[in-house]
């Protein structure tokens, strides 16, 4: 962290001013409040207040059946909802001991990597906006739209996706989805390249971001950081590589790391992760060629809701539908911790089950919450304008912060 001289004596010339940064400041991209003590433009101290959009998801989850918790996870990190959805599905599948067919795993990997790209598009684009470059953001936003259109084909919604079900997907990918995906893979690398050439060696951008809010690996680990911001400090911790889930072990990809953990490094790590995500998606598409095209869920009638036309016309499906909805399928009494690599860190689900239809206790390990707590201490001595871009580069999402 930077050390700048701080004037705190009683000379009235050096009086500190208090600034309420947030909760609804346009530069903070979400509901964040920081009460800052300023000495001119330099931050002397800050206190973060969080919880403005706390919605008690953990409490609500204790009263809901497993499959109704997916929409709650949508609203954690709403820039990459599919990762949250699938993290939750995989947690329940781990609890129930459901083995997924390879095709479902690969489809999930595609959707999760698209979500990671869309999240990084927003984060890096907004970082550009905050340093005064609007163009890159607009170039990239077009492709986030393309990703949302792919979600639309797969699940019907765009932002809070509620994508997939426990045991697979609710429907198969249609050909339009694959067409849109291929089109995206063809057009996006060009834009990403353009985006990188706009920023990576841009003198203004580099001057604004290099050595700003630099964090050492020790500090980052002590604050339990995870995700791109931890990797920017040089720690190669990625859940996808370390504890592979959803057949990530079948894919070849690199975990990009930075050197000194400043805003510029975080930006570069995210850009490189987008390239790696594209690589993973292309591998997944190639692998899908060898899989049967009609499998999109595991064969678990006890937990996977049958299609409605079956329910209305078929006795067996009706029975399963009834059993699932009324919660009459026994579940193991145990506890499970499952984590996935969310777009901004390790998203963990700690589920304690008592055999009922809803969790006895569900705790979300939310990367935004844990990453954000260093914000006020690390802002000390920083310029106010640097603190703003630091917040953008942490990629803290208010929904996930406050759960």
């Amino acid at each position, binding site marked *: 962290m930077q050390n700048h001289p701080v004037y705190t004596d009683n000379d009235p010339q050096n009086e500190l001013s208090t600034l309420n940064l947030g909760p609804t400041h346009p530069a903070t991209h979400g509901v964040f409040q920081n009460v800052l003590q300023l000495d001119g433009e330099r931050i002397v101290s800050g206190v973060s207040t969080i*919880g403005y959009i706390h919605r008690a998801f*953990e*409490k609500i989850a204790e009263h809901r059946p497993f499959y109704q918790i997916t929409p709650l996870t949508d609203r954690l990190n709403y820039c990459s909802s599919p990762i949250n959805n699938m993290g939750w599905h995989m947690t329940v599948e*781990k609890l129930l001991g459901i083995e997924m067919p390879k095709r479902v795993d690969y489809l999930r990997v595609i959707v999760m990597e698209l979500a990671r790209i869309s999240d990084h598009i927003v984060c890096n684009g907004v970082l550009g906006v905050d340093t005064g470059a609007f163009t890159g953001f607009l170039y990239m936003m077009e492709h986030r739209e393309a990703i949302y259109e792919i979600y639309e084909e797969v699940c019907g919604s765009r932002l809070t996706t509620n994508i997939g079900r426990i045991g697979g997907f609710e429907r198969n990918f249609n050909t339009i989805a694959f067409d849109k995906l291929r089109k995206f893979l063809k057009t996006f690398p060009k834009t990403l390249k353009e985006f990188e050439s706009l920023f990576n060696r841009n003198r203004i951008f580099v001057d604004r971001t290099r050595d700003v809010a630099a964090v050492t690996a020790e*500090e980052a*680990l*002590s604050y339990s950081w995870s995700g791109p911001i931890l990797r920017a400090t040089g720690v190669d*911790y990625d859940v996808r590589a370390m504890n592979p889930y959803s057949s990530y072990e079948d894919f070849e990809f690199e975990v990009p790391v930075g050197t000194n953990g400043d805003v510029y490094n975080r930006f570069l790590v995210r850009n490189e992760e987008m390239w790696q995500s594209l690589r993973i998606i292309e591998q997944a598409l190639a692998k899908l060629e060898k899989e049967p095209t009609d499998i999109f869920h595991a064969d678990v009638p006890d937990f996977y809701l049958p299609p409605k036309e079956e329910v209305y016309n078929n006795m067996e499906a009706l029975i399963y539908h009834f059993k699932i909805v009324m919660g009459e399928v026994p579940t193991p009494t145990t506890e499970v*911790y499952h984590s996935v690599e969310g777009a901004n860190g390790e998203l963990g689900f700690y589920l304690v089950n008592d055999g009922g239809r809803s969790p*006895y206790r569900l705790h979300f390990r939310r990367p935004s919450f844990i990453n954000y707590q260093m914000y006020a201490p690390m802002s000390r001595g920083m310029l106010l304008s640097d603190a703003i871009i630091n917040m953008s580069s942490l990629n803290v999402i208010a929904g996930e912060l406050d759960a």
Partner: protein
Amino acid sequence: MGKFSNEELLNKLNAEFPEQLTVVGEPFGLLTLETGKDNIIAILSYLKNDAALQFIYLTDITAIHYPEQEKQIGVIYHLHSLVNNVRIRLKVFMTDGDVHMPTATELWNGANWMERETYDFFGVIFDGHPDLRRILNVDDMTAFPMRKEFPLEDPNRVDKKDYFFGR
């Protein structure tokens, strides 16, 4: 799997802290141990600083409430040894009358908000914590909402009464 098995880890811990740890189980390969509040910081510190174990990463701190047990409130730690890629879960249970725990903020800075969240929702008081305030709920709240006796909806709310709907 990591460089050491759960069994080796348990043997090592038992040698260092004899008769202070109880094995809860090994659900899904994650070794789960229970201990008392007097030892927890020594155990966490040993796990973090031992040259072979290196549980340097505090994944999470949270709590759980079992109203029907004598020791109602449990605080749960998840640690991760990034070098060896092994995780461990530690639990400490306490009675409702004595919800004091030593703080882990001296070991990890990241424990600060995790403990504040645990205090906010379960009322566990972490002794020695530098700034133990509510974090997500409003400051003047009196209840601890994740405890089981706290209702999901405010029982005093009137906007959902049947007569509003002609019932």
